[in-house]
């Protein structure tokens, strides 16, 4: 039945996108928290944080973008969980469709919704004084990294979406992901952190991703950070995909 994969995915994508356009609060709430953090960090704490000459909004935007994604994907888990709970998931699975298109539609919806949220956050950052002289190629690279990061986290979100028993359980997994940027180079230089924390911060995925995006925005050479960032994103993506598909097969057999 794979000959219907694209048609079925498109039909189901249309369905989930309608969910978003009819309850745009999912995009607004996704964007509001990072924007509030951005306001707080720039106008409250920012004056006291020394990032070595750079404007603080420029410095922290990459981390804020990752937080935006981490909070946005909770809705994917939520929407999938609701599909499971209401029985519409079973209805689709009992129909002559390409069965995996049900998951892919949710994943692509997550991508679209997160990209919209990211654009909103970047626009607010521009109002707050964010400036970058980056060229189109650099912006596209940033977009590529963010898309990859979104896909990786979305496949993580699929796992609780399929297996959670309660709605709270389906979205609670995102809290540690939202918190992770605080233990990285996103808001303060890692050099200011005490030993063990610094070691963690410098070797967790968010730091390399933030550093790569920051370098692209400030027109600095990206160096090895870019490759480490890509390796993390692809690695997380593959592992999460495998686990998600395992959980999915367990559900439909």
């Amino acid at each position, binding site marked *: *039945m794979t000959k219907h994969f694209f048609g*079925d995915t498109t039909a*189901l994508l249309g369905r989930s996108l309608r969910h978003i356009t009819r309850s745009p609060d999912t995009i607004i709430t996704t964007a509001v928290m990072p924007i509030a953090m951005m306001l707080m960090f720039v106008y409250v704490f920012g004056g006291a944080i020394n990032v070595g000459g750079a404007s603080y909004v420029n410095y922290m935007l990459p981390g804020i973008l990752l937080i935006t994604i981490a909070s946005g994907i909770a809705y994917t888990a939520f929407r999938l969980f609701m599909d499971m709970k*209401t029985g519409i998931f079973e*209805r689709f699975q009992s*129909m002559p469709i390409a069965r995996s298109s049900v998951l892919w539609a949710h994943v692509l919806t997550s991508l679209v919704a997160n990209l919209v949220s990211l654009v909103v956050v970047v626009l607010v950052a521009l109002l707050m004084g964010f400036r970058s002289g980056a060229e189109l190629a650099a912006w596209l690279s940033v977009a590529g990294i963010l898309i990859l990061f979104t896909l990786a986290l979305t496949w993580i979100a699929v796992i609780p979406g399929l297996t959670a028993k309660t709605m709270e359980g389906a979205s609670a997994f995102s809290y540690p992901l939202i918190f992770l940027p605080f233990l990285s180079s996103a808001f303060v230089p890692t050099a200011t952190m005490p030993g063990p924390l610094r070691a963690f911060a410098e070797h967790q995925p968010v730091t390399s991703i933030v550093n790569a995006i920051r370098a692209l925005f400030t027109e600095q050479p990206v160096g090895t950070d870019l490759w480490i960032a890509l390796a993390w994103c692809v690695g997380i993506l593959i592992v999460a995909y495998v686990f998600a598909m395992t959980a999915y097969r367990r559900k439909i057999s």
Partner: protein
Amino acid sequence: MTATKARGPVIHVQGLEKSYKELRVLRGVDFDVARGSIFALLGSNGAGKTTVVKILSTLLKADAGTAGVNGFDVATQAAAVRESISLTGQFAAVDEILSGRENLALIARLRHLKNPGKIADDLLARFSLTDAGARKVSTYSGGMRRRLDIAMSLIGNPPVIFLDEPTTGLDPQARIEVWQAVKELAAQGTTVLLTTQYLDEAEQLADRIAILHEGRILVNGTLAELKQLLPPAKVEYVEKQPTLEDVFLTLVGDNGKNA
């Protein structure tokens, strides 16, 4: 792939077993369903009705035994089975955020049919939902939701329809509406397998009734056959009181197409 017609029973179940860890839900279930008939699987909560339906609709794999639908084996020819069936689950599996019309059109698109919009409009008319067609399903009453649910199951005219407890949680009017819809389906030659815990529902609708209890079919027959299992009827004179349902339906007035 098109659903081919097979001779003999359209649903054939033999020796079906299924356990969830320690719990043996099905302990050897056998039954056949003739083409174009309404077959009721009657049983209390936890008897294993939903498990049977899930196995027949390829959502669950049996531990042992065989099951065939429309001539296809549910384990080895699952895709062909899915072409032949429609499942209406225990809870109206409709999309609350979409309108009724969009729900129908979505299913038509997923069944790869032409003119999904026209199919949707026809079914809305058939199930008296035309006026509500453009409204979000979250504004529908329980009966309207169930009607939409059943309408979604009819798209593509699958020869076999599974209805898992179609009237649980519905008010008496909505229940009668659903019964009406099921009878119309069977009149057009669709085979209906329904599960229910309501005795009167099985009595009203089914050509054959099987009682599922503790994972086995206790009896299987027509209503008349089942009645013969008990000692012959005694003639007693009973003052026929209206039931509360009669009172309710008389007071409320219609049998509620627009409930």
